[in-house]
Structures are given as C-alpha cells and as structure tokens.
C-alpha cells in the first residue's frame, strides 16, 4: 500500500462541482458525498474531476448508492480513460463515524483513498478545504481504529484554466455577480491597467524603503533589478525598424482581410441577381 507524499493537487473545477452539488442537495440532507477522480503519480495525487453520489444518512445508519457510483464511473471513463477513482469527498466540517464506513467502501475501489472535506457551511468563518488519508492505529488484535492524517492541499491550474478562473474571479466584484465577456482592445486595456496597478504597488514599496519606513530586503531588491533589466536596451533606430516592420505586417493583413470581406460581399450581391437568362425570346414566325 503506497503512502502518498503529503500533497494533494486540486483543480478548480472540482471545487466548483462540489459547491454546485451541495446547493442542489435533497431536502433534509445535511451533507453531500461524491467520488473523486484523478491521476496518481509518484509524489502526489492530482484531482481533476468529481461527481456526486446520492446517499441517505440518519443517526444510526448510512446508505450509499453504490450502483450509481459504479455506473457514473463507467460513463466518465469513456470520456477520459486516464482518470481513476482516487477517493471521495464530503461537505461539512468534521469527520463522523459514518465517514469511516464510507471510507472503507472506497478503500475497496482504490488503494489508499483520499478523503476531502469541504466546509460549505462556513463553520469557522472560512471555507476549510482539507484532505485526509486513513491509517490504521491502535493495538493489533485488540482495539483497532482508523486515524485520518491530514495532507496538504494545493491548487493547480492548466494555463487556460487560470484564465477562466481569472474571469470568474471578476464576477465576485459586481453586485449581481454577473460578468459579460469583453473583446478586442478593451481586454488589452484592462490587462495593461492591471500591470499598472502592480507597478504602483512596487513603486510605493520602493518609496517606503527609500524613506526608511521599511527595511530593505535583498531578495526583493534582486527581483526589482531583474524587472528593470527586462526592458531590453536596443538602439533607437533598430527598435524603429522592428516596430515599423511589425506594424506594416499587421496593417497588410488587416487590408487583405478587409479586401476578402468586400470580395465575398460582392459575390453575394451578384449571386442574388438572376442566375440565367430565363426570359424566352419572343420571336415572330
């Protein structure tokens, strides 16, 4: 039985999915559980997908729909054959006795499953997202128990995911929590303004250091040096030629595409005129 290194990498889509299933839970259910899918490699576990599993929980018993879980896993496997069951999740803050039972079931499906808890009720004022792995404890032969050891959780993104998440972050700001998709130059403008903000933060830090309010930190100083050196020093004429040739390319392409569009529009107009000469000559005999 392999023991994982203490890092669990989670993709944002998993969290969003868990949150969504919690919102859609049945009446009377206080928490939702589900299966985690992902990939395992030598040092860490990467959780890339999940789906919720219906279950019933009461004071003294718990019932999980195993058929459903198996079915869903098969369906998911058809789309992404590389994902395997690596554990399960539950919303809620604590680990209950029922969790132990469920964890046992999942041990049959995967070696050493991960248990993830997402505190959707925000009991401690924050949303605690924790991962655990079970370990045997106690005296063998007499009282044996199961201990859940915590693992550290990290969030990883694909590049495109990062961009998607950035967009979603911006929905937090508006009161109606909605955000349209911008296009064209406005995107470049917003990106530039963000860089400007970052530069402003750096500048204020430098001012503080210079005026003695904050002690200078060497490593930060080295980063600043890198930053300033990033702007390449090229002679003015070289830069002019490079800039002009680039701009010329772009303008040419714009001209060509406009020309093409005019061409097809013209073609359209011609097509809508009579196709062939349908009027029969009236000739006298």
């Amino acid at each position: 039985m392999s023991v994982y290194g203490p890092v669990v990498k989670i993709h944002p889509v998993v969290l969003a999915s868990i949150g969504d299933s919690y919102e859609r839970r049945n009446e009377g259910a206080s928490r939702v559980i589900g299966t985690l899918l992902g990939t395992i490699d030598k040092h860490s576990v990467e959780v890339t997908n999940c789906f919720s599993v219906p279950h019933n929980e009461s004071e003294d018993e718990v019932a999980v729909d195993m058929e459903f879980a198996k079915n869903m896993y098969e369906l998911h496997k058809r789309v992404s054959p590389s994902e395997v069951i690596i554990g399960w999740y539950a919303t809620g803050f604590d680990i209950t006795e029922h969790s132990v039972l469920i964890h046992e079931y999942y041990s049959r499906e995967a070696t050493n499953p991960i248990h993830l808890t997402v505190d959707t009720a925000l009991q401690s004022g924050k949303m605690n997202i924790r991962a655990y792995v079970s370990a045997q404890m106690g005296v063998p032969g007499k009282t044996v128990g199961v201990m859940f050891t915590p693992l550290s959780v990290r969030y990883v993104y694909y590049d495109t995911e990062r961009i998607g998440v950035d967009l979603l972050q911006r929905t937090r700001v508006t009161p109606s929590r909605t955000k349209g998709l911008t296009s064209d130059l406005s995107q470049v403008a917003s990106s530039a303004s963000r860089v400007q903000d970052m530069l402003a933060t750096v500048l204020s830090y430098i001012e503080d250091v210079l005026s003695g309010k904050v002690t200078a930190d060497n490593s930060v100083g080295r980063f600043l040096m890198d930053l300033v050196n990033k702007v390449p020093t090229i002679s003015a004429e070289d830069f002019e030629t490079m800039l002009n040739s680039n701009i010329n390319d772009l303008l040419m392409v714009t001209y060509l595409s406009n020309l093409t569009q005019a061409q097809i529009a013209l073609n359209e107009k011609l097509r809508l005129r009579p196709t062939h000469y349908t009027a029969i000559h009236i000739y006298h005999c």
Partner: protein
Amino acid sequence: MASRKESGSTLSAGMSSSGGTLDSPVKQIQIEGLVVLKIIKHYQEEGQGSEVVQGVLLGLVVEDRLEITNCFPFPQHTEDDADFDEVQYQMEMMRSLRHVNIDHLHVGWYQSTYYGSFVSRALLDSQFSYQHAIEESVVLIYDPIKTAQGSLSLKAYRLTPKLMEICKEKDFTPEGLKKANIGFEHMFEEVPIVIKNSHLISVLMWELEDKSTVADKHELLNLSSSNHLEKSLQLLMDRVDDMSQDIVKYNTYSRNLSKQQQQKHQYLQRRQQENAQRQSRGEPPLPEEDITKMFKPPQPPPRMDTLLIAGQINNYCQNVKEFTSQTLGKLFMAEALQGHNN
C-alpha cells in the same frame, strides 16, 4: 430562484417539445462558472491539435434568458463506436444526473474550434436538428487557442429563422436560396453571454485566490504574433481557394445553361422556318417535338456550400482583424515603454 418554465423534451427520443416553449427566441445566455471550467478542462485533457471535442449543455429557460447550469462531455469518436452508443451514453448520463438533482434538460451543445473554423455542414446539420427539437438551443463555440492567448473566448450561436426555413425544405438550389434572400451574414446570430456565479461559488473563488500564487504568465500582453497570423492566413487562403473553385463551377454551369438556351432558340427558329416552308409547299408540318427532352438542362450546383464557405471566410477575417488590432495596441505600448527608456 425565479419561476421557471420547463420545456420537457429530449433530443434523442425525437419527441416534439411539449407545452411551455417560448415563442420569442433567446436574448441572452447565462452560464455558470462551473460550465466554463468543465469545458476548458475537457478540451485541455482530451483535445489534441485540431480535433474537436464536443459535449452537451444542460439547463433551463427563464423568461428570455437561457441558463446553462451544467454540461457533460462526449467521448471521442473511435472506429468501433456505433452510433447508438452515443444515444445510450447520453440517456444514461441524463438519468444519472437527474438522481443528483442536476438539471437534466438539453439546451444545446458545445464544441471546440481550431482557429475559428467551425462553419461547416456538420455543425449546420447538428444545430438544425437541435433547434428543430428544442427551440431555444444554442451551440457554444470555445476557442482554446484564443483563450490561451489571454482571454476566454466563448461564443454562442443560433441559426436565424430564415436559415431554419431553408434547412427544413432542403431546397439548396440557387432559386431556392434567392427566394429566401439569405446572405452569409444572416446565417448565424450570436447571442450575448453573461457569466454568473452563486454565492457559494464566489466564496470558493475567494478561497482559491487566497491560497494560490499570483499568476506569473500574462499571456495577453505577449508581443509575438507571427505564428498565430501565419496559421490564420493559411486557413483563410485554403478557404478562398475553395471559394474560387466553387465560383468557377458555378460560372461553367451558368455558361452551359445560357448556351443551351441559345441552342434551344435556334432549334425552335429553324423549326418554324421549316414549317413555314413546308406550308408554302403544301406539305404537312413537322410534328412539334418535345424540346425539354432534347435539351436536358444541366444540374444546378448546390449553393449551400458556397454560403458556408463565405460565412467561414467572414469569420476568419473578423478574427484576424481583432487579433491585429490587439497586437497593434500592444506594439504601441511597447514603443511607449522603449521611448521612455531612451
């Protein structure tokens, strides 16, 4: 949540939608963050190069908004996949999702695209069958390459009512298309998209931002453009070639047609003359022959492909123009930075 109108229909069963469908088309699309993330993930993991990945959108129609609340991906086409397998997969997926209270109503489908090339016969057919069964359905086009360049590129399209009419009648001859007076700009209509997150998801996002490192790649401000331009122009050139071939075909057809008309007239004229001569000589006139059987009119080429190609070219041009305007802006910024240095 606001009162919902349900349009209960499933595409695969082919049933017509029962009660509650709206007469007015959809004016806006509201997508949940979860759907965006799922689509991104699906392409990232399963789509390589120029293959398209597809999936189904689930949601509800609320007033004049189409709310997309969940989605699931389709497996890739392999050689040993029969067609009914897909339908079965879909039905099973929807049944299972219903158990966990996820909206199980089809409202459309999504597809990834390679540099913006998605206007094809296949897309038209699929969207037509979707829209025929479910009036409000849309197709979401996700452009992963544009997204990787810095900003999420997700567009929603529907077929215009005019195009629906034409597809219904399957009349793709030149006369048919002219009757409908349709141009390539009127094939698809784009529906504006809005992204909405629930409060819980917003908390999750906050937690994510808290715990993750600052993004160190700002792709949007990247200055390199030649690679992207090259590929786009290559695709554009291919399409324009297709278009010119199509035009040549059409021209030959119309030339043949007019030539044939001329021959017809000449023949008729000769006939008349001969008949006049015979009458003057007192002989019975020659019988009128069936002209249409002698001069069979050539087959008119289908014009739908031309329309599609024109639409695709238009799309490419729009994308190229957007890209160049962004790059020009970035170049001017770089110039300002450099000028400041000197």
